[in-house]
């Protein structure tokens, strides 16, 4: 069941949440809507579910225009950031809610609910109330509830946003595995680029109510269409007109024609990764990502003068400039087609 949104616009008062947005989500894919808060990603997701009505544009699910259909007839599974657990119902009743609405008989509901609780590893907790569950458990219950009715599509609105880092990572892996088993077309919204890249087969990067770029994680990282995508998907340093990733900054002790003088300002050890902050002669602050071994070899210390050789520099004002060894012509230059998710899972 592929999903496509065509020319979607939506305003809340003076604020334009969506500005002529079109996306294409292939059947069975796992797609992330990625963007900062206020970028319109949640509004787009809610519009697909029918929880928001669009001012213009239409939503197609499986080639059917569902724009006029009320939410309860769209057969979408929706998972909310804050779980939206039915507080007065047990875990069992929560998961069985959609089936009860569909007037399934009791035995069938019970079988289906237990099957799903097993899937989300909550089978022993069927009689608990949501208030007796941890955040991660509540979210898995919400997921089971959404999946119980066998939705055509699964929509997740910042599903892990309210959970702590460790649980978030576990659930991420778990969601990816679940999707591999079930193959239901899934869209999930996140502001965390690492989460998006970890879970999703394709990403749609949004900003200020528009789609900036769509594609696979590699596509976006290696061939960002513009400055926004480059800086949002991964870390970036700005050097004049160009942008360069911190791990593409070579630190050398001897100057040549491609290097720039820099002073070591601070060395931060983050486990395996070392973050070294420099200040250039013109006052620009940049940082490089080194490994522990590289740092030991260079024997850097604070205040030392070294030379930086930026590789793979990108510029978005004109032609991509190449400052070092790695040439970086984008495979797919940004054009009007950027709203399309090209790669299939």
């Amino acid at each position: 069941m592929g999903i496509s949104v065509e020319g979607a616009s939506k305003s809340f008062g003076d604020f334009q949440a969506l500005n002529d947005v079109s996306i294409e989500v292939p059947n069975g894919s796992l797609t992330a809507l990625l963007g900062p808060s206020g970028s319109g990603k949640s509004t787009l997701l809610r519009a697909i579910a029918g929880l928001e009505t669009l001012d213009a544009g239409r939503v197609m699910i499986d080639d059917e225009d569902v724009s006029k259909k009320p939410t309860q007839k769209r057969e979408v599974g929706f998972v909310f950031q804050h779980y939206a657990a039915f507080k007065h119902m047990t875990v069992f009743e929560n998961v069985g809610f959609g089936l009860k609405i569909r007037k399934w008989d009791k035995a069938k509901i019970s079988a289906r609910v237990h099957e799903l609780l097993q899937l989300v590893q909550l089978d022993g907790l069927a009689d608990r109330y949501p208030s007796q569950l941890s955040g991660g458990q509540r979210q898995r219950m919400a997921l089971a509830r959404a999946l119980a009715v066998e939705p055509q599509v699964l929509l997740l609105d910042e599903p892990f946003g309210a959970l702590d880092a460790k649980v978030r990572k576990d659930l991420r892996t778990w969601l990816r595995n679940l999707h591999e088993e079930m193959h239901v077309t899934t869209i999930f919204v996140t502001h965390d680029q690492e989460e998006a890249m970890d879970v999703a087969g394709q990403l749609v990067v949004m900003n200020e109510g528009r789609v900036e770029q769509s594609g696979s994680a590699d596509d976006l990282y290696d061939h960002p269409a513009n400055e926004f995508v480059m800086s949002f998907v991964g870390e970036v340093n700005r050097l004049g007109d160009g942008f360069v990733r911190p791990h593409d900054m070579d630190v050398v002790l001897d100057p040549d024609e491609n290097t720039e003088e820099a002073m070591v300002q601070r060395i931060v050890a983050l486990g395996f990764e070392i973050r070294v902050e420099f200040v250039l002669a013109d006052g620009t602050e940049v940082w490089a990502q080194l490994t522990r071994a590289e740092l030991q070899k260079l024997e850097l210390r604070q205040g030392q003068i070294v030379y930086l050789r930026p590789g793979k520099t990108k510029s978005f004002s004109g032609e991509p400039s190449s400052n070092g060894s790695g040439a970086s012509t984008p495979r797919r230059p940004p054009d009007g087609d950027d709203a399309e998710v090209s790669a299939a899972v």
Partner: protein
Amino acid sequence: MRPASGRHSRWGLRALGLGYLALLLLAPLVTIFYKTFEHGLAPPLEAITSPDGLHALKLSLLMVAIAVPLNTIFGVGCALLLVRHRRRGSALIDAVINLPFAISPVVIGLSLFLLYGTKGWFGPGLDEAGIKVLFSVPGMVLASIFVSLPFVVRETVPVLQEIGTEQEQAASTLGANAWQTFWRITLPAIRWGVAYGVVLTTARVLGEFGAVSIVSGQISGETETLPLFVEKQFQNFNQAGAFGASVVLALLALATLLAMNVLKRKEDA
């Protein structure tokens, strides 16, 4: 040093609070019970089992039976409108709903009197249709509804705001229509707010004196509710009767409160 003085001031505060409550709330209540049974059970029992007394009790319960369900339905609907479908004009509705709190019941009674009297706007028309509002049950019901109208709305609005819309939205994504969502999700989520509103409404209807007193004409055995009965017994120097009826009123109110507590406890268990 500090913990000790903290403990002292805590005890001091507690004693002050309890003393205040005892003086203002408990003392009058205890007095009524004491005075009622001062000369045994017989006199008050006789007064409230008299035909007029029984009729007053029945009439009071009838007021509750009509006004409370109507105000509950209206109150929940109105709260939904105010919280979930906020439009221009909602602020005005919000303010108007508080009117019964702000206006003296006597004034409410008078305004009903003017509206439904023989020279009022609605009076003549209804008279022709053979419907008697003033000095009969319909007028008293109107007055009871008017004075107790805000309670359910006021108790439900904050609860509705607190539960938010996510559970309702989740229900709709699971296939529930608006009606199913209301019965299965919204109402269970706000039920304690509504229940509290119902208890307050019941207490207010049972105890209403001013407005009902004016529109009813206070005809013994016909348009006399319990509070009016108490007042009349008191005026006629029948203290036992007045106190007896008062005790019945107080017991009814206590029963309402207890009923809610029992329900709530069952729910929590």
